């Protein structure tokens, strides 16, 4: 028996998300009294692979194949399910990010393994195997029993603290045969934004809503974000109006995020917006309407006009940094 974790890499590098997954897998493995095998697909060097053992991985299965450079959900499913069977995995852990959402359901069918998606805590119980998962877009959490022999858990990003471990994992290089005729998705072009802090990775997020009044009013918000090392986000009306790119839309139908600090500027806090940010550890609200629902979700609030408060906040941060 083992716990298998799929650790995605980005241009050969792992990021916090990967270590969260391994930390979580290690927690589950402890409950089951078993070991953690991590699977990496892509060109990742040995020292980077070894970094996974710092969070408890006992074995690292490294697949470096030219045919798996971009995601083909069928090919990835073939590779990961074969490994799961070989490692006798009883629990498979994947991120709840877009890659995880592409792979986990296919693996589920292949292995007849029930999915607990968007888990944010270690399993509540082993018998029956019960996980704690987000439902109703964060308005409720469910205790979900997974009845199948193999269980697949997809972990909500930023929901599980990193736990360092003294590990010395072995690396196993695997070169699975990949049938090229099975590769049916062809990536023609990749467009990456560079130099920006990704919204889903950020520890701090500064977000603007309709209370910003005009796209021309964003510079102090962007400056605040840059001083705090934060990513920028926005509410749905702002992205619908085209004031900000839709990648920044945070909320039920946009990005679901869980930063340590979310600063909502001129956002009233509609249910749909809160659904995307309610897992943030701390929320600061700046809004001119003292009755705005965002203040019910926030720990810290400033009642005031965004355009007056933001410049003062920017000055205060600069002062603090001196």
């Amino acid at each position: 028996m083992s716990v298998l974790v799929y650790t995605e890499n980005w241009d050969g590098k792992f990021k916090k998300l990967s270590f969260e997954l391994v930390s979580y897998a290690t927690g589950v493995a402890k409950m089951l009294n078993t070991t953690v095998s991590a699977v990496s697909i892509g060109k990742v060097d040995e020292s980077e692979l070894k970094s996974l053992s710092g969070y408890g991985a006992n074995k690292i299965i490294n697949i470096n194949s030219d045919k798996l450079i971009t995601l083909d959900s069928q090919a990835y499913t073939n590779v990961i399910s074969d490994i799961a069977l070989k490692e006798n995995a009883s629990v498979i852990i994947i991120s709840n990010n877009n890659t995880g959402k592409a792979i986990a359901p296919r693996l589920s069918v292949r292995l007849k393994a029930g999915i607990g998606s968007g888990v944010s805590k270690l399993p509540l119980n082993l018998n029956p195997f019960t996980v704690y998962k987000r439902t109703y877009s964060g308005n409720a959490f469910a205790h979900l029993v997974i009845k199948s022999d193999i269980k697949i858990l997809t972990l909500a990003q930023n929901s599980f603290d990193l736990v360092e471990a003294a590990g010395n994992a072995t690396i196993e290089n695997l070169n699975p045969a990949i049938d090229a005729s099975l590769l049916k998705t062809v990536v023609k072009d990749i467009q990456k934004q560079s130099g920006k802090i990704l919204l889903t990775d950020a520890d701090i997020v500064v977000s603007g809503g309709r209370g910003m009044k005009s796209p021309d009013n964003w510079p102090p918000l962007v400056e605040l974000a840059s001083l705090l090392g934060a990513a920028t986000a926005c509410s749905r009306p702002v992205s619908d109006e085209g004031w900000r790119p839709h990648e920044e839309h945070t909320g039920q139908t946009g990005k679901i995020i869980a930063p340590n600090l979310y600063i909502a500027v001129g956002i009233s806090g509609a249910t749909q917006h809160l659904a995307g940010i309610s897992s943030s550890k701390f929320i600061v609200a700046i809004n001119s309407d003292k009755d705005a629902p965002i203040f019910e979700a926030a720990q810290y609030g400033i009642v005031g006009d965004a355009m007056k408060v933001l410049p003062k906040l920017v000055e205060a941060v600069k002062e603090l940094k001196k």
Partner: protein
Amino acid sequence: MKILVCISNVPDTTTKIKFAEGNTSIDTAGIQWVINPWDELSLTRALELKDDATNGVKSVTVIHVGPATSEPTIRKALAIGADDAIRVNAVSSDAWFVASQIADVIKKEQFDVIMCGIESSDYNGSAVGGMISEFLGIPSVSAVSSIKFENGQSVLVREIDGGKEIVNVLTPFVAVVQKGIAKEPRIAAMRGIMMARSKPVKLIEPLQIDPLTQILEFEKPSPRAACKFIDAENPAQLLDLLQNEAKVI
């Protein structure tokens, strides 16, 4: 080309969720049921593709797994413009159950493009679309924010961390779609509502499938502490609290 759009029937997104029966189910009293937002965007995009005759889309069918009480949501999809509908007559128990039912229908009816929302706003499972594709052994592309046909080829935009990929995929395939696929959901016009009444809804009895998961109970998110208000003239105090109390900056 035939497009199938999978739709889920969910509480309106502004619903305040309450539980019933010892927190084992939700209290449905007073809930407005709607098409799951991502599914509604899928349907909109499917209809846009059909509107442009050069795409050669012959029909847009919606499929739903649910009891007779979800008929109004199916009629709404028909009113928006779907040509016909299929309802698998069963209360959905989990993603495995729903995907099994839909995959079985697709095997018999044959569709070229199957569109599913990336999640439903009730169970947030993000599983049905991928599962259908695996049951059928066909490709799936997830987190799709654009879909079009160019010279007989399907061109999809897939959202990845920090960017996007342009992807070609052969039909039949499942597109698991997210925000961006259509600008705004299409709204039913009076004529569409009238026409929907006479559009066919095919009723299919379910396969016997045992679900792999079961919800034991629900709980509310833990309540947050009351908001501390800080004077707008004194943002330094906010920073002090963030630094020394919350310890997040």
